[in-house]
C-alpha cells in the first residue's frame, strides 16, 4: 500500500524537479476535477501529488502584440471572466464554459482538460481550431507542441516523464476572424460531449474564406484536426454548398465508438450537423470582426 504525499511548489523548476524524481508515481494537481475523482474512485494510486497552482506562470493570462498566452492551470472561471481574452477567442471560451458546472470551472483548467486526455474534453477542439501551442517544461528544458499533437490516445499524452504543460500561446488573429465551439449533449449542462465541433475561420475583405481550422471531439480516440473539413471552406464564401461539404467531411473524419454516451451512427451523423452549426456561428463572428 503506497503512501500519498502532497507538495505545492512555488516555482516551475521545483515542480519539474519533483515530477522528475517521483517518476510514474507522481500526479499533477491543477484544478483537481479529474484527478480527485480518479483518486477517490481508486482508479489511481499515486505516491505524490504536485499542486501546481502556486506557480505564477501557470495561472497568468497575458497578451503581447495580439498574441495571447494563458497559464495551463488558470481556472475556467478566471478565463471566462477575462473580458479581453473572451472577446478575442469566443470559441475557446465556449469550450471552457462547457467543462462543467460553475463549481467545477472554479477549479478546472484548460491544461488539466487537455492532459486528462479524454477524447471528449470540451476545451481541446477549440484550442486545436485556434492553432494554439502547448508550452511544455520538463527535465530536458522547454518545448512547444501544437495542441493537436498532445493527446495521443484515450488517457495518453505525448508528454514525457517529468514534463508538464505550462501555458498555451495563441496566434495573433487577422481581421475578419471568428471561432465557435458547439457540443452535443442530451442535457444542457453537466454532460460529457457526445460530439464536439470547433471551427475557426478567417475571411478576406470580400468575404471569401482564406483560412480555416476545424476540430472535432468525442468522435475518435483523440480530438481531431480535420483538414478536409477546413479545405471545404477555404476559397469559398462559406455558402450552403461549402457548409454541406464541410458537414460531409466532418462526418467522414469520424472514427467513433459505441458507448453509453452515443452510438457510432449517431456520432457520425451529428458530427456533420454540429460542425455546420459551429461554422455558421464562426462565420457570423468573422463577418462582424
Amino acid at each position: 500500500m503506497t503512501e500519498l504525499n502532497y507538495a505545492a511548489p512555488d516555482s516551475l523548476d521545483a515542480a519539474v524537479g519533483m515530477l522528475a524524481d517521483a517518476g510514474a508515481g507522481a500526479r499533477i494537481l491543477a484544478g483537481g476535477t479529474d484527478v480527485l475523482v480518479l483518486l477517490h474512485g481508486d482508479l489511481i494510486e499515486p505516491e505524490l501529488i504536485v499542486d501546481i497552482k502556486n506557480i505564477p506562470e501557470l495561472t497568468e493570462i497575458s497578451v503581447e502584440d495580439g498574441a495571447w498566452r494563458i497559464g495551463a492551470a488558470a481556472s475556467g472561471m478566471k478565463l471566462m471572466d477575462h473580458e479581453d481574452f473572451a472577446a478575442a477567442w469566443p470559441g475557446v471560451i465556449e469550450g471552457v464554459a462547457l467543462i462543467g458546472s460553475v463549481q467545477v470551472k472554479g477549479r478546472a483548467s484548460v491544461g488539466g482538460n487537455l492532459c486528462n486526455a479524454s477524447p471528449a474534453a470540451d476545451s481541446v477542439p477549440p484550442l486545436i481550431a485556434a492553432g494554439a501551442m502547448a508550452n511544455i517544461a520538463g527535465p530536458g528544458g522547454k518545448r512547444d507542441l501544437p495542441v493537436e499533437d498532445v493527446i495521443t490516445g484515450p488517457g495518453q499524452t505525448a508528454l514525457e516523464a517529468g514534463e508538464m504543460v505550462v501555458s498555451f500561446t495563441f496566434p495573433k488573429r487577422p481581421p475578419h476572424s471568428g471561432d465557435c465551439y458547439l457540443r452535443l449533449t442530451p442535457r444542457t449542462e453537466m454532460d460529457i460531449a457526445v460530439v464536439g465541433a470547433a471551427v475557426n475561420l478567417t475571411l478576406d475583405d470580400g468575404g471569401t474564406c482564406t483560412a480555416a481550422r476545424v476540430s472535432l471531439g468525442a468522435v475518435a480516440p483523440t480530438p481531431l484536426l480535420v483538414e478536409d473539413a477546413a479545405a471545404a471552406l477555404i476559397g469559398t464564401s462559406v455558402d450552403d454548398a461549402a457548409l454541406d461539404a464541410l458537414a460531409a467531411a466532418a462526418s467522414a473524419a469520424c472514427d467513433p465508438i459505441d458507448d453509453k454516451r452515443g452510438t457510432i451512427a449517431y456520432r457520425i451523423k451529428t458530427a456533420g450537423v454540429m460542425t455546420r452549426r459551429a461554422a455558421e456561428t464562426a462565420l457570423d463572428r468573422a463577418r462582424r470582426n
Partner: protein
Amino acid sequence: MPKAHVTTTINGDAYEVLCEPGQTLVDVIRNGLGLTGTKEGCSTGDCGACSVMLDGELVCSCLVLAVEADGKSIDTIEGMAEGEDELHPLQRNFLELNGLQCGICTPGILIAARALLERNPDPTETEIRFWLAGNLCRCTGYDKVIRSVQAAAEEMREA
C-alpha cells in the same frame, strides 16, 4: 500515513486540523470538524451539494483536497446567516416561497446562489438556471428554487 497540518479559516473562525493528504475538504469539514451543514451527494463534483466558497471562489468541496485549504478562507452554509437570527435574504426567501422540499441540496444551492448574486445582482431566469446547473435538486423541479433566488435578488437590489 503521514498527516498534514492544515490551518484554515472557516466562516471567520480559525481552525487547525490534521488530515491525510488524500482527504477531501468536504470530508474534513464534515467528519473532522463536525460542520455537517455542507452535504455530500456524489463525491464527483456532479451534484453541487458540497458547494462552499474557497477564497471567494465557488467550488465543490469534494473536488478540493483539504491540504489545499491551508492558509485559505472557507465559507460554508453555517456562516450564511448574519448574527443570531438574521437570515440572509436568500435563506428567508427559500423559506417563504418553499424553495426547498427535503432540504439536502439547499445548503449548496444557497451558497451557489449567493455567489451568483454577488457577481450579478440582476440575473435573468436563464442565467440563474445555468449558474445553478451544477446543483442537482430532485424534489422541486427547480421552479420554486429559481423563484426564491429571483425574489431574493429583487429584495437585495432594493436594499
